[in-house]
């Protein structure tokens, strides 16, 4: 159980940390694009730690690589600073081995691989970002720790709108994001330890939130996430582009695939062709079973196979379900078969989930990524022109999980 901590908004935190050495837009160490540098890459190459690269309205056909620590790259307007991949460039902005880099308030679209991508870093933040129709992931952190994705949108990617992979502990927060029209709304392969996904919306993907274990990345198995206070609905979208795993997972709201000790709390989940919340094994070169997952206080409805579902090796695997609002489950009477406290009073294996049948169902082929829609104008960060630039120099302030409530239906 997490101890009570105070929720600190990012805006307030930026104001406090600004006194620790961030740059304001009126300082000399602001590099303006295109006023000072013709391209974002030129400005990034000229920047040193602590600088702000401030990008004016426009469309930039660039693939930017960042290898300098502690810089902030910001668009003056989230909807009108656009990195354009034209389906030929690989990454919009990728940060390779540089710590503390923040990217905020802009759009990346139509890249072959990723919109915004951090790899091998300690300290990262993506805020007020829009990523659309990028060929692997929209907003992505790999082999990285101490980071936040917040107030952002990821849509139209065949793998995932948001992805955190290969970290343990991750010390990461995904907060107040929207993921739609993706293969997976969120995917997290072998992403473990102090990873919170909260206050977000996952809708109209093939599957909603899918933490998972695989052999294709290091640090398996996946463990210890908290998924809390999210709206997860209608993830049955056969029109999205989709990798194989997304096709397999289609029709599930929150699906733990081979993960352990995840807490799934106070999410509102509805309208799924298979399960609302499913805890199932995952088969790669290894077979990853599921242990110690806890599903509590969720409201789950309108799932065609089962609102709540579990396929575990045996009852001793310690997965549990309590205090949920739901109608159907597999196995039957799941909260009495696998309670989070007290003794089981129902059989573990009555009316099991027909997992093999559900996996083998024919699913629609991958759709055309170019047909995925733009989201429409998204919320800008406050005061982009003048706000202090604050690199991600400290671990994220922990989210107050206990204060996150079950959200209302929109």
């Amino acid at each position, binding site marked *: 159980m997490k101890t009570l901590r105070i929720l600190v908004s990012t805006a307030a935190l930026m104001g406090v940390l600004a006194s620790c050495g961030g740059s304001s837009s009126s300082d000399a160490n602001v590099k303006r694009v295109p006023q000072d540098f013709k391209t974002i890459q030129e400005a990034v190459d000229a920047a040193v730690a602590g600088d702000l690269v401030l990008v004016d309205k426009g469309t930039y056909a660039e693939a930017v690589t960042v290898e300098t620590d502690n810089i902030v790259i910001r668009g003056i307007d989230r909807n009108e600073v656009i990195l354009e991949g034209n389906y030929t460039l690989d*990454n919009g902005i990728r940060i390779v081995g540089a710590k503390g880099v923040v990217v905020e308030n802009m759009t990346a679209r139509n890249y072959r*691989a990723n919109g915004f991508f951090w790899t*091998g870093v300690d300290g990262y933040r993506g805020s007020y970002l829009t990523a659309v129709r990028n060929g692997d992931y929209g907003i992505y952190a*790999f082999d990285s720790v101490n980071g936040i994705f917040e107030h952002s949108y990821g849509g139209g990617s065949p793998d995932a709108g948001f992805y955190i992979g*290969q970290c343990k502990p991750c010390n990461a927060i995904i907060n107040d994001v929207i993921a739609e029209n993706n293969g997976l709304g969120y995917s997290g392969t072998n992403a473990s330890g102090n990873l919170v996904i909260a206050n977000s919306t996952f809708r109209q993907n093939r599957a909603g939130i899918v933490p998972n274990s695989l052999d*294709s990345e*290091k640090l398996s198995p996946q463990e210890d996430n908290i998924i809390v206070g999210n709206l997860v609905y209608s993830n049955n979208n056969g029109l999205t582009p989709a990798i194989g795993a997304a096709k397999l997972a289609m029709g599930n709201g929150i699906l733990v695939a081979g993960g352990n000790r995840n807490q799934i709390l106070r999410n509102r989940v509805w309208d799924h062709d298979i399960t609302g919340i499913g805890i199932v094994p995952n088969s790669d070169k290894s077979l990853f079973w599921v242990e110690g997952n806890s599903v509590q206080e969720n409201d789950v409805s309108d799932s065609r196979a089962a609102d709540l579902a579990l396929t575990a090796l045996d009852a001793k695997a310690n997965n549990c379900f309590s205090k949920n609002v739901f109608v159907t489950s597999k196995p039957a009477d799941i909260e009495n078969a696998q309670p989070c406290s007290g003794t089981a009073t129902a059989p573990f294996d009555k009316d099991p989930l027909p997992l093999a049948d559900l996996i083998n169902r024919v699913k629609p082929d991958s759709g055309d990524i170019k047909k995925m829609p733009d989201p429409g104008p998204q919320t800008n960060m406050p005061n982009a022109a003048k706000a202090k630039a604050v690199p991600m120099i400290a671990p994220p302030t922990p989210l107050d999980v206990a204060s996150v409530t079950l959200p209302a239906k929109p």
Partner: protein
Amino acid sequence: MLSACSSSVTQIPRGASLPSVAVESVDNSFEPQTVSVAVGQSVTWTNTGRNRHDIHMKKGPTDFGVDQDSFVPLTGTYTYSFSKPGSFVYYCSIHGTAKGKGMAGTIVVSK
């Protein structure tokens, strides 16, 4: 009679008789990251990851490399025989850099 024999000798690199060394391209690293081979020996990369990868070298043989459309996820392979000694840094241009950051590896070729 012996004067009619050719005096040139074709040198067969030591490595040519050695098996190809295997490198796995996973998401997102090359395993093992550094391999050593002899001149004439080959390295075979296999993409066992689920992401697209490619393989490039900034300083090395000009005919080295494979693009992401050929080196497909889960099954793509690429083999290259090294004909000169040296230490060669290679990288995936999607997930690494020519400087050897991110998804990158080294081939050490000895005589």
